[in-house]
């Protein structure tokens, strides 16, 4: 057996966290450097993984399979073209989060970094687990560090938000646990690869699909169970918001591809109208809500819900463009929303206000910041030349193939997105300097500048040249859709 590269990706942050646990908490620089070092090494490993990854194959690669609970569950991890991108997104965002704590986290820095590293372990685990129970462990385990991140380092209403986050997600996922156990008894295994081959009896699929959906819908989040997200975002510290928006939300989107659609094709086809309707509601309604927000973080949180609405729309078109667009949109949103939350964090650290009305005329005092924020805003509203455009364009193309009406309504969401983002930008950056506090504000420091520049460059670079991503997932998506159609056809033949 080869070197267990995926397990080392999962374990390295955990080992780093353990190491931090034994460092004296007064040694702040030591703590920062250790965690940064660990996360950067992890990023390099994941890049190496991407380089040696065989893009022409749709099989799961680097698979590790070990007995875990005897005669019951195996520890099985591996990556294919879809999941590897999410792993790279995770390892890319985490070091940036750790870099950003300099200014925003004042107390209990050690515990915060331990929580961030634990989150990294769990998130990578989610994206590469090939066994339902292992997936559930990683998926649910994330609740503990995130609850603490919001609750300990959050804003004024942090307790309420942390509880809401915890209980909403827990409620969603216990039903998934029942479904996982049921699958074990129906199909005799929880190994995802085996389950793809065996297929699950269509008569159970609808109920199982709903159980998985209840968990993923809360985490995505889809309308009407999205209400925890604005609260959690507003109260979480910057790094927490970034992790939440950039990666945690993607776990559900990834879950939709890997499990809901992959395991239950018949049910997925059955529920397409349902998904379309709530995705459209999410896109239009939350865009309108975002327009009326007074709080920057809340506005971006609602825009996340709208963008994730696009993702679910694209995934459930079952067309090559739609699914690829959904995946690309998730990656793009991961980078863009992370950048936006970092940007909000930058001004919040200086003025301790998130209210849009407290700002205005920032361009006079923070020119560098204003330029970078422009890139992120344009990325978020999907201007051609940014990553946001490619995702939304592909999704709309895929949707047009399925239904003209749905695509037409969804396109309205793009316009609304432009409206609220540009209006936000106008209110923050332009206009006259009215607030005395802002006069004394200083422009970005080196660390902030490097974080934001890195994100801005990647938004523009992959906006013009998306091939590195699309080459990685296209073979997997193609095979994925072929298998999907085969299963659906054989089911339809049986029923005729």
């Amino acid at each position, binding site marked *: 057996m080869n070197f267990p590269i995926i397990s080392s990706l999962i374990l390295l942050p955990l080992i780093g966290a353990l190491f931090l646990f034994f460092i004296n908490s007064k040694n702040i620089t030591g703590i920062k450097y250790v965690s940064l070092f660990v996360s950067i090494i992890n990023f390099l490993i994941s890049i190496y993984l991407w380089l040696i990854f065989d893009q022409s194959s749709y099989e799961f690669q680097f698979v590790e399979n070990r007995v*875990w*609970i*005897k005669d019951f569950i195996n520890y099985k991890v591996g990556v294919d073209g879809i999941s590897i991108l999410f792993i790279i997104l995770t390892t890319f965002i985490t070091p940036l989060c750790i870099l950003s704590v300099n200014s925003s986290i004042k107390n209990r820095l050690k515990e915060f970094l331990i929580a961030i590293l634990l989150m990294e372990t769990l998130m990578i685990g989610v994206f590469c687990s090939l066994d339902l*129970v292992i997936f*559930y*462990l990683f998926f*649910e*385990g994330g*609740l*503990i560090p995130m*609850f*603490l991140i919001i*609750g*300990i380092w959050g804003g004024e209403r*942090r*307790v309420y938000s*942390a*509880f809401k986050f*915890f*209980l909403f997600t*827990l*409620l969603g996922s*216990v*039903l998934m*646990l*029942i479904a996982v*156990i*049921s699958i*074990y*008894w129906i199909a005799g295994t929880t190994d995802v690869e085996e389950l793809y081959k065996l297929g699950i009896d269509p008569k159970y699929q609808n109920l199982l699909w709903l159980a998985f959906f209840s968990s993923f819908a809360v985490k995505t989040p889809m309308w009407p169970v999205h209400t925890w997200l604005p609260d959690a975002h507003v109260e979480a510290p910057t790094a927490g918001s970034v992790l939440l928006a950039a990666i945690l939300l993607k776990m559900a989107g990834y879950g939709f591809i890997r499990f809901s659609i992959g395991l239950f094709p018949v049910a997925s086809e059955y529920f397409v109208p349902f998904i379309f309707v709530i995705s459209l509601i999410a896109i239009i309604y939350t865009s309108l809500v975002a327009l009326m927000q007074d709080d920057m973080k809340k506005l971006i949180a609602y825009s996340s819900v709208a963008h994730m609405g696009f993702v679910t729309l694209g995934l459930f078109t079952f067309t090559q463009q739609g699914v690829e667009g959904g995946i690309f949109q998730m990656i793009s949103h991961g980078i863009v929303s992370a950048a936006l939350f970092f940007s909000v964090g930058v001004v919040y650290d200086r003025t301790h206000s998130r209210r849009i009305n407290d700002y205005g005329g920032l361009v006079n005092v923070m020119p560098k910041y204003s330029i970078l924020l422009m890139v992120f805003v344009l990325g978020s509203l999907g201007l051609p030349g940014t990553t946001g455009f490619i995702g939304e364009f592909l999704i709309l193309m895929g949707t047009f193939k399925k239904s003209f009406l749905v695509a037409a309504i969804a396109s309205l969401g793009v316009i609304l997105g432009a409206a609220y983002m540009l209006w936000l930008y106008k209110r923050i950056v332009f206009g006259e300097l009215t607030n005395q506090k802002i006069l004394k504000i200083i422009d970005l420091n080196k660390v902030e500048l490097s974080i934001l520049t890195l994100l801005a460059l990647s938004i523009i670079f992959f906006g013009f040249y998306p091939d590195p991503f699309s080459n990685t997932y296209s073979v997997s998506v193609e095979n994925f859709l072929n298998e999907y159609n085969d299963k659906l056809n054989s089911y339809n033949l049986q029923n005729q």
Partner: protein
Amino acid sequence: MINLFFISTEIFLSLSILFLLLIGVFKKNSESFIYNFSCIILLVGLAININLNPQFPIDLFNNSYKIDYFTTLIKSIILISAFLVMLCSLNYVKQNDILKIEYPILILSSILGMLIMVSSNDLIVFYVGLELQSLALYVLAAFKRDNILSSESGLKYFILSALSSGLLLYGCSLIYGFSSSTNFDLIYQNSESIEYGIIFGIVFVLVGLAFKITAVPFHMWAPDVYDGSPTSVTVIFAILPKIAALTVFINFLYGPFLEMFDQWQAVIIFLSIGSMVLGAVAAIGQKKLKRLIAYSSISHMGFALAGLSVGTNEGIQNSIIYLIIYLIMNIAFFCCLFMLKRENQYFDKVEDLSGLSKNHPLLSLSMMIILFSLAGIPPLAGFFAKFYIFTAVIEQSMYFLAIVGLLSTVIAAFYYIRLIKVMYFDEQREKYDLNHSIGLKMILVVSSTIILIYFINPNIINNFVSNITII
């Protein structure tokens, strides 16, 4: 000739109790000695018990006493947890002026009663064991006799327990009347046709047993008694009688009445659902940690019963795993309670935990691990306990039970994370003392580490249980 070798644990324990009584009477100021010595006795008893290791089931005393792998395992669990309980409550007992010679002796006799219960294969032997452990526990509950709460809890426990024993005895007599025997094996042979008398008898016996494990609707005494008794006795209540009574549940239901599974399954499911839901809902408003843990243990017993309601070997095995993990979590929780003291005064209110994480980071870290585990959040041991139970439940397609159970874990999660909120998010208070005994610290560290790293190799605990075959 009866082979007494196989009951040497019980014989050793009885002789030790008599010996300690003699020492207590004839030697003055021997309280500490007796306490320490009884810890050693428990360890020796454990060694003897492990050494028995019967390869095949052994029947003694005209088939009224049974030794096999299952009973030996449960006895070892009881002895080891009794040892841990006594070790961790040593300082508490000393500082609260309840270290009298009777205290350890009463604990030992209740342990002896439990061992007899576990091995009993006859209604009368079973009843004798049950009363031996209960009588000792009545006295223990009221041990702080100058304290009005303690006396109240002792009296309450005594009266209600007497009532439930009465019902249990009535059930036993009905069973005897309709099957003309008190021996489990003979009852099994004689009760082939289902008679209403026997079903009534089973229900009455179950009422008595449900009282002991605080299953709803026979749970009313638990919060008051848990709260009123000294904490060192509460931890006994929370752990030991439940292991013994749940074992009797298994021996009793899956022994003589296996064929009547359809008749009693509904009763167990009812007890299980009631306990899970009520334990989860009622704990939300509690302000005292001991009352809270009382409701939490009610709800945990509901989960253990859910495993018994399945009617498969797997269900029983998973219940035992649940029980083992439950007792590790509870011992660890009470260790934390014993550490909340300032100048010989012990604290047990939720608000006393406020801001604990700032003054005592390690204590609150282990408390947090324990609470998340009690709530059943992966990857901690408590999650696996529930996961195994629901695996067995769903195998038999009992989806209603599974859904109710899992939804109640969400409700229960609320009050567990409320405690974490109090510890981590609230303002700090005065520091607590740090001079705890090494035994207490060791138990807390080891048990919370087990909870934390159980997921790395679950087989270690599971292997003990996988040999159990009841059916």
